């Protein structure tokens, strides 16, 4: 066992609760993410804009929302759309969303392969047509389906999560690949409306939640007005899609929270991911609880008895502009690492005063 892991184990942790600053890589996110009450609307049936600073928890909330909807097994279908490039083509985002739908539909079928066999020939053909839009092409993905052993292999290749918990791919998957290969496509390409209708017809989906993230990087190189102009085509369809139970959920930088283009959207509910000391303390407590497998829920448990409210103390040490989960996690990580490095058995009062210096964090 590595010295760091041994040190963590000696303190009662099964894993390092402060290891990941990037929520996309964090396997325990669902178990310990703290969602401030104001942004719980991100999980509701309506279009939503969530604003936050870099490091404020937007991507974590987006992943959490996707996992939350995933649990409904397709009844409430999450589609994650992260623009990977920039284009001022008016249809750019809609094409991106259509590709994201193709990825989601493919993962849905591999999650429930037998579902495909019971579909009508017309729906099967429509599915085949949609899947032609998959990244690297359908042929490539079908080969991956045949050669993969686990759903997770496909998840990684497509960047879309599976909907079931099948431990291994089986004969039904190979049959699905063969049938999709044989299936003929429709004579014309699908519109986005066709795609939405397909999700309802084929999978019984009742609502679609399109989670739009990854726009922080854009604003670092362009003015905020340019970002608004870029997403304007999506804002224009908000109301129409809302009526069809298709909900756009934007995860946006705080800088544009008061932009008129957003505030005039009557149907769009907006919320800011803001953090106070108590919420930030809760971020650490939840991680401690999960990493200790429920044995304790505060760093107080591994502190000297005259050290109380470790989490709140750490949160209060953050400057006004640093009151963000990422900063809090960094600070807690540093505290634990210091304890482990110095072979201490518990957190002492002086350990808390020695990490007051803030550190600089950039967006991930």
């Amino acid at each position: 066992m590595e010295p760091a892991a041994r040190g963590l184990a000696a303190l009662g942790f099964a894993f390092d609760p402060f290891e990941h600053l990037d929520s996309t890589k964090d396997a325990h996110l669902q178990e310990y993410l703290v969602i401030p009450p104001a942004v719980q609307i991100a999980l509701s049936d309506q279009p939503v804009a969530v604003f936050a600073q870099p490091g404020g928890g937007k991507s974590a909330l987006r992943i959490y929302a996707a996992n939350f909807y995933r649990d409904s097994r397709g009844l409430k279908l999450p589609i994650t759309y992260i623009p990977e490039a920039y284009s001022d083509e008016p249809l750019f985002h809609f094409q991106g969303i259509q590709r994201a739908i193709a990825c989601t539909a493919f993962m849905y079928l591999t999650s429930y392969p037998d579902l495909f066999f019971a579909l009508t020939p017309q729906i099967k053909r429509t599915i085949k047509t949609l899947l032609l839009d998959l990244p690297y092409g359908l042929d490539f993905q079908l080969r991956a389906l045949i050669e993969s052993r686990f759903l997770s292999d496909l998840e990684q290749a497509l960047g879309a999560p599976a909907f079931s918990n099948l431990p291994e791919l089986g004969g039904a998957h190979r049959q699905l690949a063969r049938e999709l290969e044989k299936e003929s496509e429709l004579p014309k390409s699908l519109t986005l409306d066709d795609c939405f209708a397909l999700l309802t017809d084929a999978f019984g989906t009742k609502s679609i939640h399109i989670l739009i993230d990854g726009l922080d990087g854009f604003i670092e190189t362009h003015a905020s007005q340019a970002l608004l102009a870029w997403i304007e085509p999506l804002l224009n369809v908000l109301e129409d899609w809302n009526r069809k139970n298709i909900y756009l959920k934007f995860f946006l930088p705080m800088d544009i929270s008061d932009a008129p283009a957003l505030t005039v959207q009557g149907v769009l509910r907006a919320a800011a991911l803001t953090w106070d000391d108590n919420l930030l303390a809760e971020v650490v407590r939840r991680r401690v609880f999960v990493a200790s497998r429920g044995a304790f829920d505060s760093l107080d448990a591994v502190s000297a008895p005259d050290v109380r409210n470790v989490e709140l103390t750490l949160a209060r040490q953050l400057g006004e502009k640093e009151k963000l989960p990422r900063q809090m996690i960094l600070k807690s990580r540093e505290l634990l690492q210091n304890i482990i490095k110095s072979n201490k058995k518990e957190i002492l009062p002086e350990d808390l005063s020695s990490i007051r210096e803030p550190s600089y964090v950039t967006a991930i």
Partner: protein
Amino acid sequence: MSQPYNVFHSAEFTDRDSEFERVSAILKEKSRGVLIFEGARGSGKSAFLLELYRRLHEQSEIRPFLISLLPYFADEFKKKENIWLNSERAFQQQDIPEVLSRLARSLEIDFIESEDLNFQKDYFARGLAYRKSKTVPVLLVDSVYECPEEVRIEIEKYIFAPLLASERVFLILSGRGKRPIWSSPELQMAEILTLDPLEHAYVKEQLVKLKKAGKSKRNETEYDEIADLSCGYPLIVRVMAESEQKVLADALDEAIDIIIKDTLPETEREEKKYLQTRALIEKLALVNIPFRIPDVEAYLFPDDPERRAKTNELVNVLLASGLLRYEGKGYQLNPSVVHPLRKWLASKGQYGNYLIQLTKVSQDLQETYPSAKTWYQRMIPAQSSPSDHTLYSSNLGKTQYAA
């Protein structure tokens, strides 16, 4: 075979009116929700859920389904389909497909047939999410905190999560000890209610019912004392009432053994090992503050160079058994162990010995951590605690022969 006290008879059920009213109000006022009843070992959680299931069964618009994760016996539900109850063994992972199959029948779920059992499990789960029937499913699951983590994770993944996708659904769970780590937000934010011990009058009512059923060996003159010694925990009341022991302190001892022993892992139940563990639990029962491991290691294992490791090990065993949990500022032993044990220790004359040892440890801690002086002063229970009980002592405290 099930333990004789893990048995439900609705005719012997007592009280819990306010909890039933709370459940009724939630079912009427809300369209969905998760309620968790927490309670100490022996506080009557299983019996409460079974009685609740029986009552919900009488309502036509509600479709209750009960899963008992630990062995329990309820003869009156033997012919019911929408229940999973095993008197011989605890629920296991491989039982999930069968439970899902019964749930599917009970909740009128459409699902896709598959020969692969793993596939079938997932199709059932999908069917749960897409349920069309108008009746309101109420899933009751007993001992959800105490079951092995891998079983609970599977239950959440295959049963709770898809069921929670429905517009109208209620989960009513019960558990003891440390809270599990949930993934679903609704489970993380569940409404938690505590099942407190019975009041004095209800303990007497329970004793009258047990007498009527021909199970109690106690006479009416002992009822007040049983109510006092049992601290109102229905399981202790039941064991004391049914015990062959003539002396009430010995009947209480028997009940405490049941409360503790049953929850411990198999490896800890061997007689010699158990007596050592019980001796340590007796000592912990006197610690009056939520404690940290360094606070009690010198008290539990004086002069032992490996006391930190041994205290860690004990804490882990007690956490796994659900007899201990982290509460606020430290670990706390289950009150259904603490209070009866204090009374029993007093009856055996052992209470004072432990108090002397604990006082010494408390003073040492006050010196080591002067800024936490007041906190460690509270480590010692109030002097008046249980010593006013007059009980007849027939043998030495278990701690003495366990040492």
